Structure formats: C-alpha cells, structure tokens
C-alpha cells in the first residue's frame, strides 16, 4: 500500500497554512512542512518551480499542485474526514469557511502592519475596525454554536471551519487579551477545539512565529 506523499509549501508563518498543518496533525498524517524564507520568494527564487497562481501556500499531492489556502484545507479535510459528514453538512462547513474569508479582509491590515507591510496604528485599528467586524462575524458563529449539540460548528465532530475560527481566536487573543471576553460561546469553542489531543500536541510543538 503506497502512502500518498504530501508536501506543504508556505512561509515560516501560521497564517494561510496553519489550518492545513492542523488537519495533518488531527489526522495523524505525515507531511513535509516546507517553510520558505521571504527572500527566496520575493527575489524570484521559486523553489517549487511553477505554481498554479504564483502564490503560497501550495500543496503538492504526489506531484500534483493545489493552490489557494481554503481549497487546500477543504481537500485535506475531505481526505481525512474533517469536512462534514453529509453533502449538506459539507456545504454548511464550506459556507462558514467562506464567511471567514469575507471577514478576514477587515482585520488583514492589522496583520500586514505586524508583518511590516502596512502602517496602521494598531491600537486604534483594533478598536475601530477589528472589533466591529469581529462582533458581526462572531454573532453569526454563535448562532451555529447555540444550535449545535456537539459544541462544534457543524455536526457532531470537528471540521476545518472549527479550526479556522479557533486559530483566529488564538491569534487575536495574543494581540488583544480581552478579545473574547464578551463572547463566552466563542471562548468555550476555542477551548474545546484546542483540547483535542492531536491538535494540542501540534500547537505545543509547532515553530513559534509572530503570526
């Protein structure tokens, strides 16, 4: 039985590759976690050769390359059983991931400033832009959590939508310790996801990065 060889190419950041890495960890599946230095990418030394869309992350599956972080997450989630248990559930999980994608641009300038690509005043940006967008996004998430019997967003088991939400919460709690103070369901969800043994082990072992 030949095992599929997975190689994940990204920068040495969590950012758009972290959910993919967490899916490998949850599934107990080995993968090559290739982290590329910014200089290598930006100075046109592209170690992977051609990429589908001139961007990272890229997942190489036995030589076939897949791009786009949510597509990669969905592909791995479906391979490993973390995408939803019926076609309907899978669609709902996908829609939550899309909603996160819609939410993220509101907070992206904060991250870009941290990484040195933008110049926002972090404190006022947090108050004026991040928190209102967060409130709207968390409001939607809480509706799913309140209806859930399992404590996960959709169905009875963890999905990649749970990982997206919990990772976002983790990251922003570092920047704003009170980030979920007014959102107990979100705090509870985060704790529940992070308590999954394979995942908590990965979080302890993974490289420390600013984002």
């Amino acid at each position: 039985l030949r095992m599929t060889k997975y190689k994940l190419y990204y920068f040495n950041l969590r950012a758009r590759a972290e959910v993919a890495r967490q899916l490998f960890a949850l599934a107990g599946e080995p993968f090559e976690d290739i982290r590329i230095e910014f200089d290598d990418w930006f100075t046109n030394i592209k170690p992977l050769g051609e990429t589908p869309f001139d961007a990272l992350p890229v997942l190489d599956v036995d030589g076939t390359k897949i791009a786009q972080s949510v597509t990669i997450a969905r592909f791995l989630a479906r391979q490993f059983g973390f995408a939803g248990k019926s076609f309907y559930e899978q669609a709902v999980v996908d829609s939550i991931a899309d909603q996160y994608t819609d939410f993220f641009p509101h907070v992206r300038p904060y991250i870009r400033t941290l990484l040195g690509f933008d110049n926002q005043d972090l404190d006022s940006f947090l108050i004026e832009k991040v928190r209102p967008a967060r409130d709207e996004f968390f409001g939607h998430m809480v509706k799913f959590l309140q209806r859930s019997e399992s404590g996960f967003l959709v169905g009875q088991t963890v999905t990649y939508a749970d990982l997206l939400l919990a990772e976002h919460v983790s990251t922003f709690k570092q920047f704003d310790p009170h980030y979920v103070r007014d959102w107990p369901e979100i705090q509870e969800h985060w704790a529940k996801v992070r308590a999954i043994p394979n995942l908590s082990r990965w979080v302890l072992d993974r490289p420390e990065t600013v984002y």
Partner: protein
Amino acid sequence: MVHYKLTYFDLRGRAESIRQVFAYAGVAYEDVRIQRAHWPELKPHTPFGQLPLLEVDGQPIAQSAAILRFLGKQFDLTGKTPLEEAKLDMVVDQIADFTADIKAYMMVALGFAEGDKETLFKEVFIPNRDKHMALIAKNITGEYILSHITWADIHLANSLEALLSKIPDVLDGHPALKAYVHRVHAHPRLKAYLATRPDAPF
C-alpha cells in the same frame, strides 16, 4: 424529488451562476427574487445576513460558492476525483480574488461609490485584469478547466460574461478565454436560458 428554493434580489449578481447550473442540469427550482424593501425582514432569518440563499428541502445553505459546489456534486457537474474537485475550487477562489482586487473600480463603475473612474480603471482594473486573466487562462489547458464541463466552468464563464457586458474589451489579449466563454454558453440549455433570462442592471 428534492425541492430547491433559491432566494436573491431581482438581479444576476451572485445568484446568476447558480441559476445557470440549474438551467444546465435541467433541474427545476423556485427562483425567488425579492424586492429590496422586503430584505430587512428576511435578513435575520438567513445564516449570515446575506443572499443568495439556497434551501434544499427547507435546509439552508448560504455563500454562493458553497451552494455552487453542493449543486455541482448533486448534478454530477463536478470533478471525478478529489484532486479534480480541488482544481475547480482553486480556480473559483482565484475568480473571487480577482473580484475582490477590482472591487474599488467596480463600485465606482456600477455607481455604488464616488470616485475617479478613469484613474481606478488604469491603476486598479487593468493591472489586476492582466495578472488574474493570465493566471486563470494558465489553468484552462483544454476545453474546460477539466476535460468535461463542470459547475466551475459555468461560474467562470458567467463571471467573465458579466464583466464583458460592462467592460467590452475586458478579455482583449485573451482570445482563448473569449473562446472559452462562447464554448460554455453554446451549450443548448445555457443558450436557451441566456436568451430568455430576465433583464437586470447587473
């Protein structure tokens, strides 16, 4: 028989690709078009306060890409393997990136925002059009994104056609993409749908 109900405004917008997938598949559905005045009342009853919304035997699915992917699977209009499905997904993600990157220009061009249309066209639209059309074209190596037509082709062709209707020279320099749009829209059920669909500003 599964009952499908699609709710959107009386526009093409983010529902049009979905309507075309139903048309291509020859599957009946309720095509509900609401007036703006009714939206505030309906909004809290949607998963994310947004449209389009698909209800499948009363069960809601929001987000147009999630809806399209679900219907593609239901109607056998998708990849034949997980890797093929992923290829479709990533092209669709790329279309979404392109749409986001030209948003500043489109908001002004469609009259939703004030701005300098000419400057935005040169500085926002053209560079992004060039970058993204080249990337998308690179991923259509045959007749379709895969070797057979899928939900992602219907969506991509619709997205390109919607742009062409506002910016007629948007695909200049990309004859393969122009041919691709014609190829998809030449399918009899789509051709018939396009000939009879309601008028809408976008």
